[in-house]
C-alpha cells in the first residue's frame, strides 16, 4: 500500500512538480516557506520538486537489477531442483558474509555505476533465489500433475515453465521484493558515492549527499529524501517477509 503510493508519486511526480527541479529558484538551503514547501537545496533548487522527480532513475534501476537477479536465480534453481544437483548448495554462508557493496565497487572500476549495481545485485541475490527455488522445485517431479504433463509428452523446459514455475510463484514474488531491497540499498549507496549516472533533475540518494553539509540550515532537504527511501525499503521488505511467511505457511504474526 505504502509502496504503491511511493510508486505513484514516482510516476506522476515530475508532472506535479511546482518548479523546475533542475533550476535554482531560491536561496541555497533556505528553510521551508509557503512558496517552497521543503525549502531549497545546496544550489537553491526546490527540494519538493526534486523529491517528486528524484525517484524514477533509482526505482527503475533497482527494479531492473532485482528482476535480473530473480530471473537468473529462478532459471538456475529450476534446473538444479529438477536434476537434484547440489553443486551450488555450498557457499551460501560465504555469500551472506561478503558485503554486497564490495563487488559493486570493484566492478564499478571498469563499468558504469548503473551496470555495477545490476551485476552486484545478481551476484549477491541470484544464489539465494536459486536455493529457495531449488528447494521448492525439488519434490515437484513426483507430483501427479507434473507426471501427467510428462506423460502427455511435454518437454522438460515446458514442464518446468508451465507446471513447476506457477507452483513457486508466491515464493518468487516475495523473493523479488527482497532482491529489490538489496538493489535499492546498492543503488542508493553508489548514487551517494557519486558513481551512478544520477539525472540532473534529482535523485533521492544523491540528494542526501548534496544536502548533508546544510543539515543545520535546512534539515528538511536531508530528512525528506531519507524518509522516502526508508519508507519504501521498509514497506517492500515487510511485504516480502509477509509473502514468504504466507508461502511457507510458517508463523502467523
Amino acid at each position, binding site marked *: 500500500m505504502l509502496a504503491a503510493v511511493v510508486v505513484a508519486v514516482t510516476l506522476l511526480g515530475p508532472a506535479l512538480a511546482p518548479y523546475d527541479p533542475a533550476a535554482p529558484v531560491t536561496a541555497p538551503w533556505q528553510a521551508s516557506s509557503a512558496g517552497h514547501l521543503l525549502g531549497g537545496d545546496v544550489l537553491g533548487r526546490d527540494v519538493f520538486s526534486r523529491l517528486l522527480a528524484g525517484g524514477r532513475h533509482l526505482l527503475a534501476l533497482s527494479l531492473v537489477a532485482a528482476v535480473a537477479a530473480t530471473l537468473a536465480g529462478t532459471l538456475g534453481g529450476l534446473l538444479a531442483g529438477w536434476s537434484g544437483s547440489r553443486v551450488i548448495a555450498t557457499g551460501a554462508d560465504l555469500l551472506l558474509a561478503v*558485503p554486497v*557493496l*564490495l563487488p559493486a565497487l*570493484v566492478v564499478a572500476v571498469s563499468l558504469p555505476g548503473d551496470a555495477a549495481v545490476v551485476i552486484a545485485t545478481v551476484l549477491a541475490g541470484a544464489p539465494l533465489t536459486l536455493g529457495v527455488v531449488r528447494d521448492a522445485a525439488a519434490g515437484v517431479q513426483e507430483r501427479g500433475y507434473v507426471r501427467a504433463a510428462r506423460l502427455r509428452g511435454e518437454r522438460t523446459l515446458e514442464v518446468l515453465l508451465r507446471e513447476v514455475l506457477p507452483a513457486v510463484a508466491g515464493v518468487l514474488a516475495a523473493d523479488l521484493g527482497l532482491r529489490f531491497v538489496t538493489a535499492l540499498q546498492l543503488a542508493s549507496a553508489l548514487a551517494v558515492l557519486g*558513481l551512478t549516472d544520477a539525472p540532473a533533475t534529482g535523485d533521492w540518494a544523491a540528494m542526501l549527499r548534496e544536502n548533508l553539509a546544510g543539515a543545520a540550515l535546512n534539515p528538511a532537504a536531508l530528512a525528506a529524501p531519507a524518509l522516502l527511501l526508508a519508507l519504501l*525499503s521498509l514497506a517492500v521488505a515487510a511485504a516480502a517477509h509477509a509473502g514468504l511467511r504466507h508461502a511457507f505457511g510458517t508463523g502467523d504474526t
Partner: protein
Amino acid sequence: MRPSLTAGLSRAVLAPLRAVGLLAAVSAAVFAATELLPGDAADAVGAGRASAAQLAELRAERGLDRPGWERWAGWAWALLHGDAGRSLLSGRPVVDVVGGRLPATAVLAGPAFVLTALLVLLGCALAGRRALRRPGDAGGGLATAFTAVPQVVVAAALAALLSGVLGWVPPVSLLPAGGGPPDPSIVLLPVLTLALPSAAFGVALLGGAVADALRRPYVTDALIRGVPAGRILRRHVLPVLAAPALRVLAVVVGGLTAGSALVETVFGYAGAGELLVSSVAARDTPVVQLLALGSAAAVLAVLLLADLVPVRRPS
C-alpha cells in the same frame, strides 16, 4: 583414532586449505573484474590523447599485452612478497598509500565494532528474555525491518538529528590537517552510522538462534528444576551459540569494511574506505585491488575461525 578426533583433524587441515583456495578465487575475481574488462590502465593513463602506437608501447612496457592468467599470477606472486605495485594516480607504492589511511579507519572501525558488539549482546539478551516470557512469539521483527533501511538513510537521519536539529556535531568529519588524534565529536556520526546497521544485522541473525537455544526442552527443564541461570547459560546455551555467533561476526566484519567506504565518503573522512571509493572513481586499479582483497581476506579469516570451532549440535 576416535572418529571425533579424525573429524577435528580433517577440519583443522581442510578449513585453512579451503580458506586459501577461496582467497585465491577472490583475488582472481577481483583481478578479472578490474583488469580484464574493456578499457585498461593504458587507456586510463593515455586518457584518449595517446596515439595507438604510444598505447601499444605503454602496454608492452607495463606487461598489459600478456595473457590474463599470466598477469594475474605475476600480480599475486608480487603481492605475496609485499609488493602491490604503484598507484596509477600518484606513482607511490600502493602499500604505502593504503597503509597511510589505515589508522584513520581503525579510529572509526574500532569503536564501531565495540558498539556493535554491545548492541548485539543487548539485542540478544532482549530476544532471550522475550523467548522465555512469550514462548510462542517469533520476535526479531524490529531488527529485521531495520536491516532493510539503506545505510545512507541512517547516515542522513543521524546527521539531520545530531547536527541539524540538536547541533551537537559538525555534519562533515574533516581530520585535523597535521595528523594527530581526531576530536571525538568528529567521529561520533560516522561511528554511529557504521554500528547501527551492523548491529541490526547481528541481532536479526543471532536473536533467533538465542531464542531457539533457550526454548530447548533441557533448558526449560533445568530452569524448572532450579539450576542457577548462570550455569544453564554456560553449560547449555553458550556452547550451542558459539558457531552462529562467529558467523555473525563475519557478517559484521564484512558490514563494517563495506560500510566504512560509504560512511567515510559521506562524511568526508579521509580513511581507507574513502580511498577505495576515490580510487574506484579515478580508475586507480592497483589501489582498488589491494583494498578489495584486504577486505575479503578479513571476512574469510573470520569465516575460517567459524569453521575451526567445533559445532555442538543440540541433542
